[in-house]
């Protein structure tokens, strides 16, 4: 049953071949059996899930079921869930029970989905390996000695190990696409503003965007239908009509212009990964697409820019975790200063503190112009690069990550090397564009993701291309060994 895609489960429920309760019990049992070796969940909400499943079954009997009704899912532990711990992978929020639901949670619940639990992640989404979590590292189901990528590593791992048919993630610099790539699943980072950020614990507000992690592009389209849309509670939410992302999935790719940025295929790209990407491009050409070489000349600046903008915003966003109102508070503070210092010193992990310090520095008087302002200027140049490219092509394609999943602990001692693993994904966030990663093959026996980058609000086109590709390949149906 867990081999089925979300769309197939939806059809099975529709035909009465199974019930939501049965499905939910099945996935809960898998989590219980397999997750101890993977650590993809921070919280499993079994009872609540069964209640929701029974409610979904009852709704179905009343004839009130949509395509997502009764389908289990997991939420990244960055989305606030009413009455359930929302930890963000941090000691700081280990005791935080949210009094409200994030818009994404609310929408998926309204669509009838059943929450199995909350997934593990890099602390406050800061990391590319899911190793910075207060709850310990997540393991890659394809090789447990390797990382699943991050920061949505728990969600990608859970979907790859078929512990959930779908999960939510967030992507600030690649946090959906990179773990999707490393775990061999499909992940979509929508256009900035397409999915409400309300109730999503902020890391870098101008870059954060929630999205789905699923087995297939079709499943992602179904999820995105429910997740996306204008939300008056998020001022950066785009006021656009809702779209049916499944409508154009099968459109032919004849004449599709694919842009290959030469900057994505240079030094630093693992040869095994390069081979897989080249094969995937051939596959797309066979479907009628035409390849055009393009330039994104400021790509090399995206990591330095990102590591000014994102820490600057996070240094401010994380100021609220001060031990005054909720979350962790140090024991017996001597005075206010002591309360602040020890609460934050003890409550945050090393990577979070590193970024808060970088960001505080970048915003300081005398440095603001040289760092933050300059970074914003370069950010515009990066956006312009993409705009020019999209005058000539319909989609930009390349690797999601320069390498396959790396070993646990391999990069934790060297933050710069870790940061470089997001080289192909970060510029997409800086430009606010939609991007996705789909399974495209294997190198050294580990999954390789193909990245698709679209124009603003071009999610439907990306899903269409990914879906067509998945109709002629089966990489997305491969499952890690030993998960049955």
């Amino acid at each position, binding site marked *: 049953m867990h081999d089925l895609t979300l769309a197939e489960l939806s059809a099975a429920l529709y035909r009465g071949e199974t019930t939501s309760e049965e499905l939910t019990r099945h996935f809960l049992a898998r989590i219980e059996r397999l997750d101890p070796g993977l650590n993809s969940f921070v919280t499993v909400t079994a009872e609540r899930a069964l209640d929701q499943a029974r409610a979904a079954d009852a709704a179905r009997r009343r004839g009130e079921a949509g395509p997502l009704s009764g389908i289990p899912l997991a939420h990244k532990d960055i989305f606030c869930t009413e009455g359930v711990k929302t930890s963000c992978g941090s000691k700081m929020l280990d005791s935080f029970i949210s009094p409200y639901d994030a818009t994404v949670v609310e929408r998926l619940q309204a669509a009838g989905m059943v929450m199995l639990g909350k997934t593990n992640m890099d602390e406050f989404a800061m990391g590319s390996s899911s190793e910075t979590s207060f709850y310990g590292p997540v393991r890659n189901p394809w090789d447990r000695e390797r990382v699943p990528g991050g920061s949505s590593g728990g969600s990608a791992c859970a979907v790859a190990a078929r512990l959930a048919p779908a999960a939510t993630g967030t992507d600030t610099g690649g946090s959906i696409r990179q773990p999707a790539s490393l775990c061999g699943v499909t992940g979509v980072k929508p256009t900035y503003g397409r999915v409400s950020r309300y109730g999503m614990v902020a890391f870098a*507000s101008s870059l954060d965007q929630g999205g789905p992690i699923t087995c297939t592009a079709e499943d992602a389209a179904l999820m995105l239908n429910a997740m996306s849309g204008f939300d008056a509670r998020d001022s950066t939410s785009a006021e656009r009509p809702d779209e049916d992302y499944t409508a154009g999935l099968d459109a032919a790719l004849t004449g599709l212009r694919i842009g290959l940025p030469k900057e994505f295929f240079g030094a630093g790209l693992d040869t095994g990964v390069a081979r897989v990407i080249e094969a995937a491009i051939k596959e797309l050409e066979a479907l009628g697409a035409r390849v055009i070489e393009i330039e994104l000349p400021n790509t090399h600046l995206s990591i330095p820019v990102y590591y000014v903008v994102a820490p600057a915003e996070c240094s401010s966003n994380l100021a609220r975790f001060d031990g005054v109102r909720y979350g962790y508070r140090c024991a017996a503070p001597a005075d206010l200063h002591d309360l602040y210092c020890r609460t934050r010193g003890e409550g945050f992990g090393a990577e979070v503190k590193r970024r808060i310090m970088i960001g505080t520095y970048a915003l300081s008087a005398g440095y603001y112009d040289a760092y933050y302002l300059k970074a914003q200027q370069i950010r515009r140049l990066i956006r312009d690069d993409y705009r020019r490219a999209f005058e000539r092509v319909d989609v930009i394609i390349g690797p999601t990550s320069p390498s396959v999943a790396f070993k646990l602990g391999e990069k934790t001692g060297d933050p710069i090397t870790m940061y470089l693993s997001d080289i192909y994904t970060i510029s997409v966030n800086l430009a606010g564009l939609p991007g996705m990663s789909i399974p495209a093959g294997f190198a050294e026996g580990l999954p390789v993701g193909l990245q698709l980058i679209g124009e603003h609000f071009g999610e439907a086109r990306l899903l269409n291309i990914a879906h067509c590709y998945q109709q002629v390949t089966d990489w997305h149906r491969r499952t890690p060994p030993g998960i049955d």
Partner: protein
Amino acid sequence: MTDKGWEPVIGLEIHAQLATRSKIFSGAPTAYGAPPNTQACAVDLGLPGVLPVLNREAVRMAVRFGLAIEARVSRRSVFARKNYFYPDLPKGYQISQYELPIVAAGHIEIALEDGETKRVGITRAHLEEDAGKSLHEDFHGMSGIDLNRAGTPLLEIVSEPELRSAKEAVAYMRKIHTLVRYLGISDGNMQEGSFRCDANVSVRRRGDLRLGTRAEVKNLNSFRFVERAICHEIERQIALLEAGGTVVLETRLYDPDRDETRPMREKEEANDYRYFPDPDLLPLVLSEDFIEAQRADLPELPDAKRQRFIAQYGLPAYDAAVLCASRELADFYEGAVAASGGQAKPCANWVMVEVLGALNRDGKEIGQCPINPRMLGGLVRRITDGTISGKIAKEVFEAMWQGEGDADAVIEARGLKQISDDSAIAALIDEVLRDNPTQVAQYRQGKEQVLAFFVGQVMKKSRGKANPQRLNALLREKLGAG
């Protein structure tokens, strides 16, 4: 005030709380005085994941202020985060406007003591959110935090350093106070902290073009405190400079109990706010149509109203200024004039002396006045048409104030109608003259002051109702004839 060749240079930063129903970035109510933390929603508490949404009404109010001071209303302004840690600042930053405020480069005119007017430049006015309140009593060595006020919309109005005395500063502050209330954008309630200011004060040698080092005096929530604090600060700085010392750039707190300013503890001062544009809020873009609609909707402003009162009602400048102190009072006056049949000056006197006096006595605002403009106009009308005398009118006024109905009802119920019938008055005069032959003799011997005695006696007999003009005329007639 101390001078000794020194010239004070003062600029004010006024914080006016905007009279919106909900907060500037959340839907929680702004009403004052609720139990702690009952008017703070998830957004005000700064819970993880919450986002601000700008209150349109606060924007509209800021635009109206900008138009009223003939400022530049920015077509594009930007909200920024002012970062600092404080327990009553839930997010660890205050959302404010920094580089691009919504209102820039305006001015108002203030009246100086010598009767001249002075134009005071207003550098900028920007929107921002208020913080919560720390409570230090009753918590056994700990502090309580009340976040009801967190997120309340404020308009910070920054003047140019063009004020030259504490009196000018107060005149400026009063002018802004009147203006925001006219515009209906702030209740201006200073006890509740809806209208407060910080003063930047420096002194320099008269004739010197350079500015001296300034000190910022915080926590000024009454006109009196502003005046006292600035006077003190000027004297302190002059004394310091004359003793060969230097003024340090610092924030000082005014302590009204000890009537002095003193430096804030260093911890309360943040040095680097790390301002940057708030990524949760898009730049605020205003259309020409929106701004013009606000302009068209502006009420008559205080200066214009004052000029009109002088021209239309022929009032002295002083009266016009008193009556235009608030829109409500001016409306009250105009309502009374209309109801009185155009008795502009008598109405002005009644409003300024009796109405304001009684309000002051009872500790009431004009909005709580127990008599309405129509009732006051009706009273003035009855004086004009001779139904009652001015003296009786005061009794009628007091009765109206106590809720006995309008002037006609009181006059009727209390039988206060003036006696204007000559034969009735003459009969009373005859009685008085008959009863007081000694005084009559004195008058005849040339002691004219006795006339007042007769008037008083007749008035007493008529219980105040005799028409004073007729009484005087008839009395002289009778004494002359006698």
